[in-house]
């Protein structure tokens, strides 16, 4: 029997060697390299709790409060609101309001004759930080905003179904003005009638509603923030309007290319000249300079000849002009787009602004909206793509002018429309201000400071939402497909994205808007780089079935004897135990 015993031991030893040495060796040599990823932190990011903190300063000027009430100043008060957007995303707004009385200098500034001048001199006194709001409460009898002496142009954007037609209607307000919102981060609020008998608490609570309105105009509204989260959250209860706003605005990106194209389908009849360089300098560049913290912009222009629209405009006898109906506008863009050419030098999203000068046989050409009225600007835009303006030149043909006619394009008219469209595309939203609000027009910069802040808030939140979704889905993907090689550089990008995301969230919480945006941009860049890294796309690994087809000629003949002899040993051992038991019984 010792011989049989020896055979059994040999079989067991071989099985042991295969299991202890062979399998680990095979496992080790065929392993793919997978760098360590911060999975736990990523899964924390999966459920995002954002806190947005706004500093509000409410300054009472002389004559609004009784000395009694002023005694308790300065005073601060924190107000928090919580919204649960969905199971994994929560929002908390923290309004930190400080109340104080105006300094002597500020009183002087507030004594300026008009609100605009007061706004400017208040700005000179102290520069408020990005994202904060200062509200000056002025006495009811103040001459600063008795009735509107200055003309405030308020732009209305009338939205029509998918293709939005813009109409710029200068409207003049003549109603009682409660709040004046300046070009910077200050607002003037006419104090509601306080009873002198009230204590300070009552006064403040009476004021709260108005301050809140001011803040939601100048800082951010809940709808905008939810719309900015659209990458994470399935939209259900968002209003149609803010949905349209967020769909129109181009997605957040580290850079944008803005291309102006002049389409001249008929160079035989007219030769067009546009001073695009000067126009960009004077109209577009100030806005872009202001927007520099959000993204890098590059502007270029081109002239395309023989570029035609995709639809044939219909001739309308009643006005003896050609018309494009709103329904056909969606067919205009595609054929033109083939001529525009993609930007060869960068991969940033492109915003196209086309100036179309109709050919001599099809002019004048007017765009009509859904209610068959002519659109005054003769322009339309396509969400996230750009805008098209039709520029009629037929009245510039002289009676017997020699063809081609030289025509200079009035760039002020063109750029007004393009600038409005650009603001829409960039997401500088115009909420309808509550009644009694007057918004100062943004002036030469094209963008008021508080409008920039609104944009910064929503862009930061959008960036954080996008980056966190990118990172979590990347982590999910890498977790699911075990064959993908994770190189060190990807791991590094992922970790830097995660740390930037964490810092962005922390900065938002601390109320440092500028830093929050910067970190969120870094996060988005790093996460996109990791997600689109070519090494993750390599199909250099075998699917498992093919791998085992190759292994079978080796594995099968090796494993069958081992398994069989192990089975045999086990069955023998069982049999022996049974024998022993029978014997002992």
């Amino acid at each position, binding site marked *: 029997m010792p*011989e049989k015993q020896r055979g059994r031991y040999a079989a067991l030893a071989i099985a042991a060697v295969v299991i202890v040495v062979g399998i680990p060796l095979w496992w080790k040599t065929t392993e793919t390299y997978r760098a360590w990823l911060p999975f736990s932190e990523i899964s924390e990011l999966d459920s995002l709790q954002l806190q947005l903190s706004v500093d509000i300063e409410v300054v009472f000027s002389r004559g609004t409060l009784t000395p009694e009430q002023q005694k308790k100043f300065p005073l601060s008060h924190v107000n928090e609101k919580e919204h649960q957007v969905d199971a994994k995303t929560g929002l908390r707004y923290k309004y930190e309001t400080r109340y104080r009385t105006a300094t002597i200098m500020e009183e002087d500034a507030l004594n300026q004759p008009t609100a605009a001048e007061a706004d400017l001199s208040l700005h000179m006194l102290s520069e408020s930080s990005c994202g904060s709001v200062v509200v000056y409460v002025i006495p009811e009898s103040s001459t600063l905003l008795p009735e509107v002496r200055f003309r405030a142009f308020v732009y209305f954007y009338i939205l029509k179904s998918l293709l939005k037609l813009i109409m710029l209607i200068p409207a003049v307000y003549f109603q009682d003005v409660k709040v004046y919102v300046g070009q910077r981060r200050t607002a003037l609020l006419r104090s509601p009638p306080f009873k002198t008998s009230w204590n300070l608490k009552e006064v403040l609570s009476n004021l709260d509603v108005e301050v809140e309105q001011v803040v939601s105009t100048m800082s951010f509204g809940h709808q905008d923030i939810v719309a900015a989260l659209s990458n994470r959250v399935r939209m259900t209860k968002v209003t149609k309007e803010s949905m349209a706003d967020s769909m129109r605005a181009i997605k957040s990106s580290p850079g944008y290319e803005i291309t102006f194209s002049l389409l001249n389908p008929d160079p035989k009849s007219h030769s067009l000249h546009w*001073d695009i*360089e000067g126009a960009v300098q004077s109209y577009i560049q100030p806005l872009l300079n202001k927007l520099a913290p959000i993204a890098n912009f590059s502007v270029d*222009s*081109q002239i395309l000849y023989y570029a035609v629209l995709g639809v044939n405009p219909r001739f309308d006898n009643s006005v003896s002009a050609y018309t494009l109906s709103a329904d056909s506008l969606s067919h205009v863009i595609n054929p033109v787009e083939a001529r525009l050419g993609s*930007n*060869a030098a960068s991969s940033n999203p492109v915003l196209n602004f086309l100036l179309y000068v109709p050919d001599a046989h099809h002019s004048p050409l007017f765009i009509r909206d859904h209610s068959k009225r002519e659109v005054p600007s003769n322009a339309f835009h396509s969400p996230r793509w750009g805008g098209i303006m039709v520029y009629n030149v037929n009245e510039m043909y002289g009676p017997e002018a020699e063809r081609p006619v030289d025509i200079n394009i009035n760039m002020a008219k063109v750029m007004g429309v393009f600038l409005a469209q650009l603001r829409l595309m960039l997401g500088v939203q115009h909420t309808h201000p509550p009644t009694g609000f007057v918004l100062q027009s943004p002036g030469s910069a094209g963008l008021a400071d508080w409008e920039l802040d609104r944009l910064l808030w929503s862009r930061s939140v959008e960036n954080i939402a996008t980056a966190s979704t990118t990172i979590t889905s990347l982590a999910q993907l890498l977790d699911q497909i075990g064959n993908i090689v994770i190189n060190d550089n990807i791991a590094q990008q992922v970790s830097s994205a995660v740390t930037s995301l964490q810092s962005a969230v922390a900065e938002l919480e601390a109320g440092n808007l500028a830093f929050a945006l910067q970190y969120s941009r870094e996060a988005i860049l790093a996460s996109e780089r990791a997600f689109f890294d070519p090494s993750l796309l390599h199909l250099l690994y075998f699917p498992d079935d093919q791998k085992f087809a190759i292994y079978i*000629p080796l594995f099968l*003949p*090796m494993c069958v004897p081992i398994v069989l002899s192990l089975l045999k040993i086990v069955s023998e051992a069982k049999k022996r135990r049974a024998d022993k038991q029978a014997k002992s019984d």
Partner: protein
Amino acid sequence: MAAHRCGLSLVFILIFSSLACHSSCDSLENANEDTEEKQSVSDTPREVNSDGSIAAEDLNERRGRSTDAELDRRDGTRTSEALTPAAAARDEFQEELVIRPLHSGDIYASFQFRTLWDTDFLQEGQKVSHYRLFPKSLGQVLSKFSVRELHISFTQGFWRTMQWGQPFIPSPPGAELWVWFHDTVSDVDGNWKELTNVLSGIFCASLNFIDLTNTVQPSASFKPLGLGNATDHRFLRYATLPREIVCTENLTPWKKLLPCGSKAGLAVLLKSEKLFHSSFHSQAVHIRPVCQDEQCTSKAWELRQTLNVVFDLYTAGQGKKEWSLFKMFSRTLTEACPLATSSKVYVDITDNPEGELFELSPATPLLSQAVVLGDRRTYSVFDLTRAETFGQLRSLNLLLRWKGDGGEMLRPLLHAERYVAGFGLQTGEIHTVIYNNHPYRAFPVLLMDSVPWYLQLYIHTLTVTSKSRDNKPSYIHYQPAKDRHRPHLLEMLIQLPPHSMTEVTVQFERALLKWTEYTPDPNHGFYVGSSVVSALVPSMVAMNTNFTQDQPLFSSFVPVKEESSYFVRVYTEPLLVNLPTPDFSMPYNVICLTCTVVAVGYGSFYNLLTRTFQVDEPSLPLAKRLANLIRRIRGVPLLT
């Protein structure tokens, strides 16, 4: 040996300093050419008083000629003229078609479109981003990658020099790209890689297959054709893709670069179904800086788009020696591109002064003479900007009817061909044969060969023989290949004796590739790009170096430096070399075989180790067992 090398390098320096000098001179002459052209168009005599007034004079002149950019200023929308120099940047566009009836009965049509833009992409601190006639996509590429000069060509078919003579702008079969980068570029290889990727997107070509393994930096063969005398070949990159197939998807983006597209002007003739039904098709884009005025105070960018096509007598012409625009392109001309300052069709009638060889209708009184490629040629000119060109039918359909036999063609002075010799799949020999057909003049040529690394050249077997005598090259630049990293580069300056044939041979060994490095059809063979022969060929007639007269575009591409010679570049055939190809199912077979061997060895080993041996009682033979059976029945004692 050292002394010898020293002497060689001395010769080389002498030669190339003269070449470099040419190129610096040429920039000036080039400038002359440009401005003279302008001047001749405008016909306004002008004087240049001092350096300072040149620009103003120039501006005035231009204002008189056409009304483009300055109207903006006159309009008053912009008050300051000095604010942006780019606002004053002007551009102009010219188009041209040359038709040359070939002696073989085929017909050669060469289109050239030139856009000239007075701006400087590489000027510090000023970003050029507003485009008019110049295509935006190319402009962006130029400024992003700091490109100084860019030449790209796509060719289908091989130019038969012996039958057709020299082409106006030569190009090798497949795709060719050579780029001079600006000398401020620090990472040339990185820029080159990105540039090829971008260009491959713009032209829908597989230029993205250009990588370090097929890129070379020729030291002497490719000098800048435009302004500037860059000699540091670190900023030059040259690559060819001989396998590239050119088709309509390459033509469409090329046409899109034209200001008028294919809607007006000569470009309406560019119909792909006809252009690709030809024996030779080549389209190219050349971008280079040129002088804006004759003083060369500022640079202008020139974009030349050329398209050369040879229609075959038998396939396209149905064997009849009768050509018309309609027959060639299935279109006729009706108008010039309204943006073009000049739009002309030239027909070569040099061999046909009296109309004895062929008949050309409609007849045109306009004749033009130009010295092209060392020969004085006469052309009938059809100016499309004039209404009378189109006649009453309002369309121009040139008709060319041959009367008799084509006659003999003058043999081109320089000609080269190449083939691979040898047998088997191990070694081979590349033969390059260069012909000098000049009866009495010897001249030097530069031969450049770029051979992929998988043909391992034995440079010690390099022989150059002319008239069965050893011909020692006066300059050899050889850069050996590195496996999977860079190709061989061989450049030689060879003196060709008059009326001779010079043969350059070099032996090579074929490398075994890794199995993933083979192309999908490895048995087709591997292409080796054309050799390039560049030479200054002695001219029969005095070349035109002073550009006082209005010159057609086709004669002004390569700058001419001296009267007695002209520059020619000749491309040889690409080679198709078979490499040893393995059986591609081999890896799996090998795996299976090894596994089986291992399994068998392992099986017997296992058997040996685990089998238990027992002493077995010998069994009785069959007969005895049978006997025992019977005995048991009978009850007799058994046998043992």
